[in-house]
């Protein structure tokens, strides 16, 4: 592309960029429209883009430019991750970052105004591109979100973001954006000063709503581009009083230092020093503000390079890709879409399942056996949705309209129209059998029966079914509206279509779905079993609950191990431990189950009873250790073995048993892939995300080293630590990795 001559021919298409040319406004007044046709920033797009920028400056007729995307649903959703992963060294990545910085700097310094027209996701590098422009216009739609999710991938915004954001939205807001990576909706972005104008989405008109909205966005952007060029519009934002004050305060070095310190302390406390990215972000911002432009940009590219090669970043990236993998239905499209869902049992789980279903437009029947229980469940759904109204992510009208999808009832009326029934009744095989038989008498032939259980084998539940091919397990995690994982369990008899249907419903409910084979404890509960048994042993050896919590969270678990038992419920844990103990024998031993039983006897059931290892009181944040446990722990006290009782050893005892069991699930075919194993462990059980899941952890820690640890503990405690064959295979062959 050389001069203006070519432009007169109209549209010019390159691989990643379409340039709509003469948008001639008056005589020789051109606004150039660059339209992205891809939604990731790649090397190729950058170079095409740089060429076009050069031409914008060279051509006198062009007075301003508009950047817009032709991909529906996204502006630019970030940098091309493959491009970063393909780099071998941190220098290479730093180089990439520098190229990005240069390209965006070029836009920023352009004498001709550049307007970013944003519809859909504007993430990472996309946001950095947008804030390098002189003006930003965004559509006020739910799909339009702005964010710098780099931190969630263990990275930092590496194309000038760390330098521009603080100047744009102020230091505190910039830290908030970059350190949390959270999504910012367009209206919020406008308030923060991240975008300059909003465009409301349009309804149907001369075109479909989506197409016309984009076109309108472009028209409005052209207007502003023209206005900026002939100076009828100013790109300077009028800052509010609060922001002026904040900016003023932040200009004082002392205040700035205090902010750095506060933020840094908060980050250290939250990350336990396990995640390097947030600290690097603070460091980079600091460099720019305290040492000037060049130092800031240099620090950004260097730190970006360093972060990209950390194992934390690779682990988080693995989880990101795993999530994408688990958001697809590998069983294909089910023959019959589920439109009406019935949930049995309006307890915590049942109501939670109902909530995530109605708000996706599924007609949902919530059935319980008692009015009181049903009321509680319906109130839970209302409360869950209403909290969204309070947070303004939903209007009260939308809440009411969503709730109209929910029918609460005590009988089986309307079940003849149900496409799927999910039972979440009490975890007792006899009750499950009773419900299954009752339901099968009233549902249509195509209806899927799903059981929400954390440990009862699905084939055992299906044993009384007239149509076992329609029976499947759907294991949700509590609280359902917040936990992202859904573990789906298929038996030998479950049909492909039933599986497809269950996965489709799970995905619709917004879940990350893993599909595993049936067996005692399936995958997640089974992995947790040995770890919790080890926790009990550690407790018996005299480590107090607070200490156990501290060392497990220091390893990266979001919830301490003792607290976890309280959360799950001691009675449930006892139940599961007994069942799994029967199924797997010695391997699930370790701590004494009698300890749990005594706790149950004393009413120390965990959080739900207000007492477990800790005392729980409404409104009291710092809970204290339950002194009633002293006597119980004393009764079951075991001698501690000093050779395996350092903090690190305790951590490793917990984790190696977890990992060994996960590997065994893969070995036995319960799991079909390490990816699902990692995703299930992290999103369902809180396995440290910085380690990327048990299989990623084996890869990074080294299978051999891990087996060595297991052998060490095996020597002390016996077969509970015997490494499984799969781990041994990987240990014997250093080139073998779960994730290539």
């Amino acid at each position, binding site marked *: 592309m050389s001069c203006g001559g070519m432009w007169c021919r109209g549209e010019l298409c390159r691989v990643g960029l379409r340039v709509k040319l003469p948008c001639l406004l008056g005589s020789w007044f051109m606004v150039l429209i660059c339209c992205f046709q891809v939604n990731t920033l790649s090397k190729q797009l950058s170079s095409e883009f740089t060429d076009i920028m050069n031409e914008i400056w060279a051509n006198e007729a062009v007075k301003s430019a508009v950047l817009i995307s032709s991909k529906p649903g996204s502006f630019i959703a970030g940098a091309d991750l493959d491009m970063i992963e393909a780099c071998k060294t941190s220098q290479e990545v730093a180089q990439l970052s520098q190229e990005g910085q240069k390209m965006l700097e070029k836009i920023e310094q352009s004498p001709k105004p550049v307007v970013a027209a944003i519809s859909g996701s504007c993430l990472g590098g996309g946001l950095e591109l947008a804030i390098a422009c002189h003006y930003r216009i965004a559509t006020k739609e739910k799909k339009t979100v702005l964010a710098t999710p780099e931190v969630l991938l263990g990275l930092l915004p590496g194309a000038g973001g760390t330098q521009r954001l603080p100047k744009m939205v102020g230091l505190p807001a910039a830290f908030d954006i970059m350190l949390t990576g959270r999504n910012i909706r367009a209206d919020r972005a406008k308030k923060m000063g991240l975008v300059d104008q909003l465009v*409301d989405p*349009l309804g149907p008109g001369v075109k479909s709503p989506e197409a016309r909205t984009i076109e309108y966005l472009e028209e409005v952007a052209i207007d502003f581009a023209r206005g900026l060029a002939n100076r009828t519009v100013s790109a300077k934002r009028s800052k509010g009083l609060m922001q002026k004050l904040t900016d003023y305060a932040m200009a004082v070095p002392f205040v700035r230092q205090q902010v750095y310190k506060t933020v840094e302390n908060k980050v250290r406390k939250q990350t336990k020093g396990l995640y390097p990215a947030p600290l690097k972000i603070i460091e980079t911002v600091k460099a720019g503000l305290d040492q000037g432009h060049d130092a800031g940009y240099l620090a950004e590219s260097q730190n970006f390079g360093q972060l990209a090669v950390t194992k934390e970043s690779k682990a988080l990236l693995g989880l990101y890709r795993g999530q994408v993998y688990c958001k697809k239905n590998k069983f294909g499209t089910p023959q019959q879409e589920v439109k009406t869902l019935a949930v049995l049992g309006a307890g915590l789980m049942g109501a939670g399942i109902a909530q995530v279903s109605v708000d996706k437009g599924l007609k949902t029947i919530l059935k319980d056996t008692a009015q009181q229980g049903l009321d509680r469940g319906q109130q839970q759904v209302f409360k869950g949705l209403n909290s969204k109204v309070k947070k303004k992510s939903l209007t009260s009208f939308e809440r009411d309209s969503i709730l109209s999808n929910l029918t609460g009832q005590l009988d089986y009326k309307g079940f003849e129209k149900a496409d799927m029934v999910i039972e979440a009744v009490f975890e007792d095989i006899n009750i499950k059998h009773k419900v299954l038989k009752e339901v099968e008498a009233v549902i249509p032939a195509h209806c899927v029966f799903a059981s929400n259980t954390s440990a009862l084998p699905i084939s055992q539940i299906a044993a009384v079914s007239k149509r076992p091919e329609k029976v499947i397990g759907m294991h949700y995690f509590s609280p359902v509206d917040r936990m992202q994982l859904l573990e789906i369990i298929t038996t030998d008899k479950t049909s492909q279509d039933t599986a497809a249907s269950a996965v489709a419903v799970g995905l619709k409910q917004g879940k990350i779905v893993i599909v595993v084979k049936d067996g005692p404890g399936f995958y997640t509960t089974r992995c947790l079993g040995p770890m919790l048994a080890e926790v009990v042993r550690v407790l018996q050896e005299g480590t107090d609950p607070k200490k156990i919590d501290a060392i497990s969270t220091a390893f990266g678990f979001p919830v301490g191990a003792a607290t976890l038992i309280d959360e799950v419920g001691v009675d449930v844990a006892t139940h599961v431990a007994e069942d799994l103990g029967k199924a797997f024998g010695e391997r699930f031993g370790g701590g004494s189950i009698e300890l749990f039983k005594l706790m149950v006897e004393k009413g120390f059931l965990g959080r739900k009873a207000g007492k477990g290892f800790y005392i729980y009181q409404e409104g009291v944040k710092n809970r204290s250790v339950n002194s009633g446990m002293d006597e119980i722990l004393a009764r079951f006290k075991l001698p501690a073995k000093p050779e395996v009782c350092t903090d690190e050893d305790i951590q490793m005892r917990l984790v190696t048993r977890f990992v060994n069991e996960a590997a065994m699930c893969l070995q036995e075919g319960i799991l079909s892939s390490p990816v699902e194993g990692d995703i299930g462990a992290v999103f369902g059980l809180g396995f440290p995300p910085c380690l990327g899941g048990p299989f990623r952890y084996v890869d990074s820690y080294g299978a051999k080293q891990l087996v060595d640890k297991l052998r060490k503990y095996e020597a002390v405690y016996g077969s509970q630590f015997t490494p499984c064959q799969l781990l041994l295979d990987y240990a014997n062959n250093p080139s073998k990795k779960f994730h290539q």
Partner: protein
Amino acid sequence: GLPRSYRVFRGISSWSFFKLAGSLVNITSLLAVQPKSKKTLTKSGVKNIVVVEGVRIPFLQSGTSYADLMPHDLARAALQGLLNRTSVPREVVDYIVYGTVIQEVKTSNVAREAALGAGFSDKTPAHTVTMACISSNQAMTTGVGMIAAGQCDVVVAGGVELMSDVPIRHSRKMRKTMLTLNRAKTLGQKLSLLSKIRPDYFAPELPAVAEFSTSETMGHSADRLAAAFAVSRLEQDEYALRSHTLAKKAQDGGLLLDVVPFKVPGKDTVTKDNGIRPSSMEQMGKLKPAFVKPYGTVTAANSSFLTDGASAVLLMSEEKALAMGYKPKAYLRDFVYVSQDPKDQLLLGPTYATPKVLEKAGLTMADIDVFEFHEAFAGQILANLKAMDSDWFAQNYMGRKSKVGAPPLEKFNTWGGSLSLGHPFAATGCRLVMTTAHSLKKEGGQYGLVAACAAGGLPKCVLGP
């Protein structure tokens, strides 16, 4: 110029537009004048229902001469005007239906209060209906239903709106405290309740800022609608100017026959609508967008303004009218109410209702001699015209094989419209019907079609012979 009144309008526009926004209902009705040449729409077994006469008091910009009155005063004036004009014996009137949008709480059944004050018999029952901007259309079709069902022979229908005064309430917290206070028995209880009052309790609650379901104001919705149909600012200003120019011409030419003078207590007799102000494109072009700032296209000048006014019509079965020696002004032949998505198609009612009512009556666009559409916003009218003229829209959103076609402008709102004459929400429907009847008579036409959109939906009428 575009003057004070517009400034007034803009000053309060943020909340005042609410009822305009929102209705899901649209109405179309078919009116016909004398069954001459073309086909007759008489249905066997169904009574013919006629409009004997209709009047309205002048429509005034709110805050002007009617500012100190109450809604029922306006309604009373319209009803009295109707009695005077028709000399109908009051005992003949079987029923009165009145429409209103923003209710004065003291006169919640404004139909009854106004009828009693206007000298109607206290034996004549009356009720009030509400359906946003088509409330008086609803009043008329309610009357039609009563006559068709054989319940009544003579019904008075109308509508009133007084935007100069709207109910502003105490906050919910304050109301709750005050109500509880009523029940408090001891001084101690009363004091303890009073001690709970905080400054924020005193914040008043204005009438809803927006459509309840979408929280969007009508003007904002109109701006989006105009954008969806790529209606430019220029087109809207041109259309608004046309409306004012035509209204002025009609007013000067004495064509607005439905207007009756109103002697306002303490003030001079009002004889003319006061919102008609033909301006220039240049002056209109200077206005800033009123809703979508700073780049929207809907301004104070191309929107209807806040108006006070009232109207009334006398409906009878044809048989009764002829027996009483009246010459009907029009026959109400058919009507249809439709409703659509309150968010994106709020103001598109006329597009949906027009083909429906035509098909129902067995007519085509070509049969219609007079079109009267309610002009909430110039952008909304132009969007509707574009939608009616779009095959794409007809196929994708209306489930039709092809477009119905836009009405020819030379037959369309030729005596001005809500943009220029004003739009007292609930009084507009009767004005549309009477304008159509008078216009048909003047032009020697046979069929007229009335369409209006309202928060929530849209009805249409056809006037026929």
